[in-house]
């Protein structure tokens, strides 16, 4: 079963626009939500992460908004750049904190 869901599957924005990537989860015991990005032919790498004690985490142009009640979070990329074109994965730590579950990813394309 897919415990972490992402939408949309793919997203195209113009350079300079804000891209919004969505994620939802089912297990209320998840307590750490990292976002990874992956460029073609490369491995995933941590981009930014949030814990439920916060409802917002910012790192430069990247911001996570977190809604614990609705079990939803979103990644906002402001002033999108062509170099941001990648697949973005939302993840959550499992019940006992032993492993991460990943969403199916959102493929972002930023057009110049």
């Amino acid at each position, binding site marked *: 079963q897919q415990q972490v869901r*992402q939408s949309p599957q793919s997203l195209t924005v113009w350079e300079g626009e804000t891209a919004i990537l969505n994620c939802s989860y089912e297990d209320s015991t998840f307590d*750490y939500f*990292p976002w*990874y990005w992956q460029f073609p032919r*490369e*491995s*995933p*790498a*941590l981009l930014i*992460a949030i814990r439920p004690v916060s409802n917002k985490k910012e790192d430069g142009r990247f911001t996570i908004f977190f809604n614990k009640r609705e079990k939803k979070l979103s990644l906002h990329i402001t002033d999108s750049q062509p170099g941001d074109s990648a697949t973005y*994965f939302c993840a959550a*730590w499992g019940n006992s*904190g*032993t*492993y*991460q*579950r*990943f*969403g*199916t*990813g959102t493929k972002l394309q930023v057009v110049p």
Partner: protein
Amino acid sequence: EAAVTQSPRNKVAVTGGKVTLSCNQTNNHNNMYWYRQDTGHGLRLIHYSYGAGSTEKGDIPDGYKASRPSQENFSLILELATPSQTSVYFCASGDPGGSQNTLYFGAGTRLSVL
């Protein structure tokens, strides 16, 4: 810098053959993981390990075995490879409960089973 090294990087196997994918980490992390990545499925956990001598089943363990002979090494074994196991396999290491709970991934192994 965290380092996870996978070998081989590319592998072509025949149906019914045995395949071993190797992973080495120099991060001194207790936990290691094997994921496979397929279009439309994201990253799915196959096996993971808490430390030397331990292996645990992930979400899709059928058809795979794992071995953790040491802190540094974690192998994924396909005893009887099938075409459905054609995929990109990623090894990762990490320590839950750490300040970041970050997974560090290897470069991946592209496996084709013919």
